[in-house]
């Protein structure tokens, strides 16, 4: 890479800038040929002794060295650019090559396969920030930090070498990329920059490509990737809260849906229960009716055969059942003039068998008392149940 990385702009005055460069290359080649010995010293041991064929040999040797300096190797990912007296003559493909030696022809080698990367807003890692590169103004007058990288390749070595003073190609592309990205971000609202960064990157990539083509730089953008895009630290908290608010909104929504998903099925369950109960009621009422009706029909059939007897029997059975379960007071009123006094409340007391048999209240310590009380309660419950029916 050292060959096609000349620093033209700095060495302004002082002759053709590539002379000493090439001289150095030449020396380096000589070094290589003589296994690292001094470049210009004739290697022949008998050079000091003026031999019989010393001079011609020297001439041949010098010629050979001069011609040999034209050999060069182009690696697989490179192209060689050959200039004859400063004019471009050919582009050489990978392999061992030979050009007419200096000063007739010179060669410059350019890496065309390798992907090169330049980072804008940071170097190597996003922790290593370059704030002045990253901070940008958006279309809605907000500030945003964009850290991105551009991958590019040299696709046209001729253009790359001849049209621009490129020097450090990373810096060259970085400058163009920064300008392009700022232009794109300047046209875009902050939300789009933050949340649709891929589109921003694509637009910036197109713009960078346009500029590189306008300058005929021989460089092609492979892609533009946004490594990080953030609001400035000063407002980071507010942005985070807005994002949390978005989460909150979703959460509330799903809470509402959860409520609906809880309530509606339950309501459907209740509805089903109501319908089932109604259906049960319908069937049971009908069944009861059919039962009662069947019983009555059967009875009526018998009744029709012997009405009087059946009537009496039914009446007596009913009365027996009633009177055997109730408290009865038979009052025989002959004349009906005397006023009959019935202490009903006393009678009521006597009706409960426990109350009748129970003497004075016993001390609470006796174990019977609570049981008696419990019995009483049970009785009352029973009564109440029966009344309820």
């Amino acid at each position, binding site marked *: 890479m050292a060959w096609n990385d000349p620093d033209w702009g700095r060495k*302004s*005055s002082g002759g*053709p800038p590539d002379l000493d460069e090439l001289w150095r290359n030449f020396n380096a080649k000589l070094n290589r040929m003589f296994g690292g010995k001094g470049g210009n010293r004739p290697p022949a041991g008998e050079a000091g002794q003026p031999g019989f064929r010393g*001079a011609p040999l020297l*001439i041949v040797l010098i010629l050979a060295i001069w011609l040999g300096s034209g050999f060069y190797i182009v690696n697989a990912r490179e192209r060689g650019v050959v*200039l004859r*007296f*400063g*004019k*471009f003559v050919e582009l050489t493909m990978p392999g061992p090559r030979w050009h007419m030696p200096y*000063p007739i022809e010179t060669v410059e080698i350019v890496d065309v396969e390798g992907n090169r990367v330049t980072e804008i807003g940071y170097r190597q890692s996003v922790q290593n920030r370059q704030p*002045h590169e990253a901070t*940008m*103004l958006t279309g809605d*007058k*907000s*500030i945003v930090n964009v850290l991105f990288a551009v991958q590019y390749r040299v696709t046209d070595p001729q253009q790359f*070498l001849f049209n*621009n*003073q490129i020097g450090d190609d990373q810096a060259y592309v970085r400058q163009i990329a920064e*300008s392009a990205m700022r232009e794109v971000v*300047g046209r875009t609202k902050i939300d789009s920059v933050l949340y649709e960064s891929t589109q921003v990157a694509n637009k910036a990539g197109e713009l960078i490509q346009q500029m590189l083509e*306008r*300058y005929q730089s021989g460089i092609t953008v492979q892609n533009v990737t946004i490594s990080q895009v953030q609001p*400035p630290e000063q407002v980071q908290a*507010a942005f985070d809260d807005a994002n949390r*608010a978005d989460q*909150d909104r979703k959460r*509330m929504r799903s809470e*509402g849906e959860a*409520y*609906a998903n809880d*309530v*509606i099925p*339950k*309501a*459907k369950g209740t*509805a089903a229960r109501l*319908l089932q109960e*109604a*259906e049960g009621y*319908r069937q049971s*009422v*009908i069944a009861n*009716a059919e039962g009662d*009706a*069947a019983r009555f*029909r059967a009875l*009526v059939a018998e009744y*029709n055969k012997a009405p009087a007897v059946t009537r009496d029997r*039914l*009446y007596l059975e009913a*009365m027996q059942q009633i009177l055997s*379960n*109730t*408290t009865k*007071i*038979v009052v*025989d009123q002959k004349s009906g003039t005397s006023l009959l006094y019935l202490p009903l409340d006393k009678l009521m007391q006597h*009706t409960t068998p426990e109350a009748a048999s129970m003497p004075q209240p016993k001390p609470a310590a006796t174990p019977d008392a609570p049981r008696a009380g419990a019995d009483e309660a049970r009785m009352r419950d029973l009564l109440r149940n029966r009344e309820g029916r």
Partner: protein
Amino acid sequence: MKPKAATVLVAALILLVIASFSLFTVDQRQNALVLQLGEIVSIKTQPGLYLKAPLVQNVIFVDRRVRTLDTPDSDLIITAEKINMLVDSFVKWRVADARQYYVSVRGDEKNAEARLLQLVRDGLRAEFNKRTVDDVVSGQREQVMESLRANVDREARALGIQVVDVRLKRVDYSEKVADSVYEQMRQERVRVANERRSTGAAEREKIQADADKQRQIIISEAYRDAQRIKGEGDAKAAAIYAQAYSLNPEFYAFYRSLDAYKESFKNRSDILVLDPNSEFFKYFKNPGRGGK
């Protein structure tokens, strides 16, 4: 043979020395100015091998490629609404006329760059003074750059320079303004956050209210249907009863009354005060005589 070879060697060396003083190569990337005692004698714009008079003439090479001039740091430039902006730009330029370039900047690159920088700064001020922040940041960024390019190019022609492009890089608020921008951004986010939260609450409310409505409808409709079903049952039962009891209504009344009595009086707490002259006690006092 020996002296001959040596002679050849020496002659070749002398020839080389002379050639190196009187020949020069012009690269594709350069123009060459041939100077004789400081006067420009000729300009070589085509690449190739050229001759010059040794010693009296010297050659100056001028790079013709497009170069980049980056403003070293951002300038404070005021926009139409009197806001200070930090502006950073770069210029792509090349030597269009080597002779004029050499003459006007005396061949000193630094000189050229300083002049160009001044032109760009003046141009920037002019463009920004008549435009708003919005225009220079988003609306008319390209127009700003294009008219800058055209103006600087026109001015720079006098230096033998062609301006290929002028590009804005940074166009940022100065520190003071930036703080108020942050404040605005913060408020905007607060507004967004509040809006989102209240929207969320409203949505939740709406969904829940809708669920409650549906619940009521579902239950009420079920109640309606249930009542109808029960009614059907009742009707059916009534029909069955009527059909059966109409076989003998009088007996039914009797029979059903007995049932009712049994149901009504079945506890010890029910006290019946009875007259022994009633139908039930027919035989109670007078056994043997049935009836009254």
